[in-house]
């Protein structure tokens, strides 16, 4: 499955890109995709307990199963307001 990934703030800085596209196996979860990214970008690992996610512009759980064509966002801890 082809997944588009959106990154923000420090995650974007670490990855050096706002958007990535990655292939994942059928049935992959948001968490599995994140684990893959922590291998690709080791500095992501510090965010594993703090990151949250949104799939297709809705908040989602890290154990959500992804579908082909999904857009997933990984959200570092927020600081709006």
């Amino acid at each position, binding site marked *: 499955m082809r997944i588009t990934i959106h990154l*923000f*703030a420090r995650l974007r800085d670490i990855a050096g890109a706002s958007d990535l596209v990655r292939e994942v196996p059928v049935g992959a979860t948001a968490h599995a995709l994140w684990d893959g990214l922590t291998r690709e970008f080791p500095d992501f690992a510090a965010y594993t307990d703090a990151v*949250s996610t949104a799939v297709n*512009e*809705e*908040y989602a759980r890290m154990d959500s199963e992804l579908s082909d064509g999904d857009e997933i966002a990984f959200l570092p801890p*927020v*600081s*709006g*307001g």
Partner: protein
Amino acid sequence: MGMLAFVVTTDPLDLGTIVNLVARRLEDAPASAGAVASFLGTVRNENQGRRVDRLEYEAYEPLAVKAFQRIADESSGRWPETHLAVHHRIGRLDIGEASVAIAAASPHRADAFAACRYAIERIKQIAPIWKHEYFEGGDVWVEGARADPEDEEARQTALRLACA
């Protein structure tokens, strides 16, 4: 933009715009009083002993707008006759500029105050917005709460701070 309740924008914020917006929504129902509580957050020149130069805010815009709507739904679930509007600025903000404007209108002033305070607490908890601080000698992404709208403990904290 001025007519929308939930907005993320690079334009300077205008509190009057959203106060009028929510006040007008009160006019449909008969009521003995109209109360609008509002909040403006502004950029200050110091943080943790650092002399702040400016901020840059970034948002995941479509989700941020939905987050504001979600917070308004939570608010009107708790305070049924209350109407909320939230405008959040992104991009570069200089010292003294407003980063967020919130207005809550209700026939009951207690509800207007509570909904407004609840909204700013929830925004800080869950809105996908990030603050990049530029200070003398460096810069840093400010990282606050893990954004989890389902975190019931966080929601209870916001209700408690709203004096609800």
